[in-house]
């Protein structure tokens, strides 16, 4: 009988062992995932009942919690809310948080595993629990300059540091005031939210990292130029036939240059001139010669078709899968089904400025516990090498020529060498254009990469173009940051 008993004892022990494991899985392994479930009302109460950590720009809070008299104990306040809304997001009493309030919630609310001992200490020493503070990479001067320069346009401006990927400015318009969504009356929050959602100008979109994705138009020619130079079969002096119109194979579609004529005159045009003057026909020809696979590969090396968390989730930019020749020709000048965010185009410019290496974009510098011990420092991380250093140097020169003596002339700054590329993308037969500028400065020692997006043709329908509206915005922002 004792042999059987021994076995039953083992079975009973295994049953308890299972329970030790299952409780550990739930309370330790899955705890953070469970806390992140939007249906988890405990997380919400919890995140309100502790003093949520502040979000800081240059040491000054752009989001902080102050004591309130109601059940939630603390009121979240967003100083300069509309300016920093795409950075902070908001945390409502009902519904889901957005922005850093969402992506760094566990740190801000003091629930992350790295704060475990800190919270234990506070518990033992009788202090109230408190969340960690988040210092973002945003440069307040660049952010304000981008806000001012974008004016009343619908669009976005993003400024990054090419060598690190740190996001120095991220502005999107139209925007909203996160304070209106942080009030503790959930009916009022719902009404405000519904109003913003119904607004046809989509103020809740972060157009710098997502929203209704736009075709990049001519700024995508940078990617195609990179693919050509990287193939080893082309140099800036390679030439292409220079007709004034091109019918795409197997279709009735006709491609024209933006001016309507040939590209700068002559029977043939060089790659350098085609990029400088931003001509469509030579790029359509180049695209068909390269093929969609080579362009896709290059685009993906720059970050297309990848998701980036900055740490807030962003929309991946898209270079479509499997294309025929005509579709490939369209994508070669950024039309067709190519879609890009300003953040993605900033990564392209920054990589060219950074000797060919793409850095992971990142909004946060450091997370610090209330007792000032660092919880997480954000070291620059490489996404990978997109182009060789030689190609990068060549392209810097080509982009400088575009600003000094080409289609991006309105970004010129006295005394500073600016590299840039404009874009004017078509959305539909009669829809307003999407206007772009992407570039960096100073070209010989790049400190700032900038991308400007203006939707709805900047109010000019099909009359607006990148150099008219987007390039001056970039110039104004670059002047502001370079003078500091």
């Amino acid at each position: 009988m004792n042999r059987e008993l021994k076995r039953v004892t083992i079975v009973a022990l295994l049953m308890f062992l299972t329970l030790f494991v299952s409780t550990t899985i739930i309370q330790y392994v899955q705890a953070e995932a469970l806390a992140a479930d939007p249906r988890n009302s405990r997380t919400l109460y919890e995140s309100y009942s502790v003093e949520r950590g502040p979000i800081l720009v240059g040491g000054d809070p752009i989001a902080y919690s102050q004591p309130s008299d109601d059940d939630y104990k603390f009121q979240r306040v967003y100083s300069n809310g509309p300016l920093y809304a795409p950075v902070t997001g908001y945390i409502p009493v009902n519904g889901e948080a957005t922005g850093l309030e969402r992506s760094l919630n566990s740190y801000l609310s003091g629930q992350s595993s790295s704060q475990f001992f800190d919270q234990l200490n506070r518990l033992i020493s009788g202090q109230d629990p408190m969340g960690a503070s988040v210092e973002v990479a945003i440069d307040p001067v660049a952010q304000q300059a981008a806000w001012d320069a974008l004016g009343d346009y619908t669009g976005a401006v993003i400024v990054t540091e090419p060598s690190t990927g740190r996001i120095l400015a991220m502005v999107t318009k139209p925007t909203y005031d996160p304070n209106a969504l942080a009030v503790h009356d959930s009916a009022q929050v719902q009404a405000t939210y519904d109003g913003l959602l119904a607004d046809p100008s989509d103020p809740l979109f972060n157009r710098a990292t997502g929203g209704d994705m736009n075709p990049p138009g001519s700024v995508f020619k940078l990617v195609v130029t990179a693919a050509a130079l990287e193939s080893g079969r082309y140099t800036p002096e390679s030439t292409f036939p220079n007709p004034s119109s091109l019918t795409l194979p197997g279709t009735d579609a006709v491609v024209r240059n933006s001016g309507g004529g040939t590209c700068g005159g002559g029977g043939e045009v060089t790659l350098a001139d085609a990029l400088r003057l931003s001509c469509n026909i030579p790029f359509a020809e180049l695209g068909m010669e390269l093929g969609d696979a080579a362009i896709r590969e290059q685009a993906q090396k720059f970050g297309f078709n990848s998701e980036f968390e900055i740490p807030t989730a962003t929309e991946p930019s898209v270079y479509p899968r499997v294309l025929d020749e005509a579709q490939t020709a369209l994508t070669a000048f950024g039309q067709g089904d190519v879609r890009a965010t300003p953040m993605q185009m900033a990564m392209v410019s920054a990589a060219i400025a950074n000797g060919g290496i793409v850095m992971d974009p990142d909004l946060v510098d450091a997370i610090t516990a209330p007792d000032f011990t660092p919880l997480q420092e954000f070291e620059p991380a490489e996404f990978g090498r997109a182009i060789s250093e030689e190609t990068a140097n060549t392209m810097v020169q080509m982009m400088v020529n575009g600003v000094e003596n080409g289609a991006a002339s309105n970004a010129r700054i006295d005394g500073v060498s600016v590299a840039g590329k404009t874009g004017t993308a078509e959305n539909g037969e009669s829809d307003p254009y999407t206007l772009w500028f992407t570039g960096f400065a100073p070209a010989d020692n790049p400190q700032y990469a900038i991308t400007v997006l203006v939707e709805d043709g900047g109010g000019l329908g099909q009359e607006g173009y990148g150099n008219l509206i987007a390039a001056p915005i970039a110039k104004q922002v670059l002047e502001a940051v370079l003078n500091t």
Partner: protein
Amino acid sequence: MTDRAGRTAEAPRSSGPPTGSVRRIRLPQRLRNMELWLLIVACIINAAAIVLVQLGAMGRIDTQLVLLGAGLSVLVFGLHIAMRFVARDADPFLLPIATVLNGLGIAMIYRIDIADGESGWESASVRQIVWSAIAIVAAIVTILVIRNHRVLFRYTYLSGLVAIVLLLLPLVPGIGREVSGARVWIGIGDVATFQPGEIAKIALAVFFAGYLVRNRDSLSMVGRKFLGMQFPRARDLGPLLVVWALSMAVIVFQRDLGTALLYFGLFLVMLYVATSRLSWVVLGLSLFIGGAIVASQTLDYVGNRFANWLDPFNAERFDQEFGGSYQLVQGLFGLGNGGLIGTGWGQGRPDITPVPQSDYIIASLGEELGLAGIFAILALYVLFVARGFRIGFAGQDDFGKLLGVGLSFVIALQVFIVVGGVTRVIPLTGLTTPFLAAGGSSLVANWIIVALLLRLSDTVRNHPRLVIDG
């Protein structure tokens, strides 16, 4: 036990208080003294838990409940003193463990009462204290009345009959009551007060032990070999099929999956220990799993439980009004919220989860005491069950061995079914967590089990085996 071998020559101590003619040799009651110290620690833990709940949830101390808890401690010490006379050599760990678990349960139920704004004689915590008192008195009576467990052997078939009657009671019109879908309660008027199935598990354990000791030869000797195992003859399958049918009846008519699993698991383990035939377990498990699968296809409530278990986070299941996964998921959220060290007494929000003081008390404790607290509670159960199994190993009569194993295993299995259900090891079923959960019948049943195990362990110590079989 070798250190106690010399005591076997003494006059039997269980023959009542010493009379003038028999001179009693006073020996130090080492085990009882150890139990006393452990009981004091247990009562301090319980008092601290109540005070911490009050400080955590109300920010002040209310002496009324502390006094009620103190009254309960007096009863526990009463049981201890009774054992000094009638069960001097009983296991010293069982009583303190049951005391701590009972106390922690009361503290958590009280904490939920505070959150729900309940107080006084209507509140679950005060009722739990009253039931605890009744349960401990029942344990004292049990240990005083049953001086030798072999008495129970005589009532084998009576126990079987009692178990069946208890199981059928909730189905009797007039006194049967249905609570959250399961028809396992009896009551008078509007109040559902008692779950006879909890008491039935003791009667069943007694019946199984007695029946198996009587009949195990025919159940284990004959049969044919297949796949390396000795399988029983068809005509010997009777008892297994009867118990299986009983379990299935509980599933179908009482709509109580957990109780069915508990009874059937208890029977299988006792059958295996008695006959040492693994084939019984294989046959039995196949039958039960087959039955459960058929039930999950045909009975809505079983199907829901399975679906919730497999995919609780599914939005449709979460939002389903009846039989959805809302409770399961809220329990997981609560446990997750507790994390490693818990929120502290009175600091979490266990009241968000439905029935946080009964079926879900383990999730409530996990939220406020954390993984550390859950581990401590599970360790207490492990120790309790291990002490019970010891009786099985060291016992000298097969009936006692079987009964000891059965009663200990039923506690282990019940903990597994409840905690495993809450933590998604198995589908969730409604069973009480022994000693912790709110519920009078469960407390009375489990305290009687404590008394029986104490009685069995005392016999083992009193009559040590000379030869331990391999």
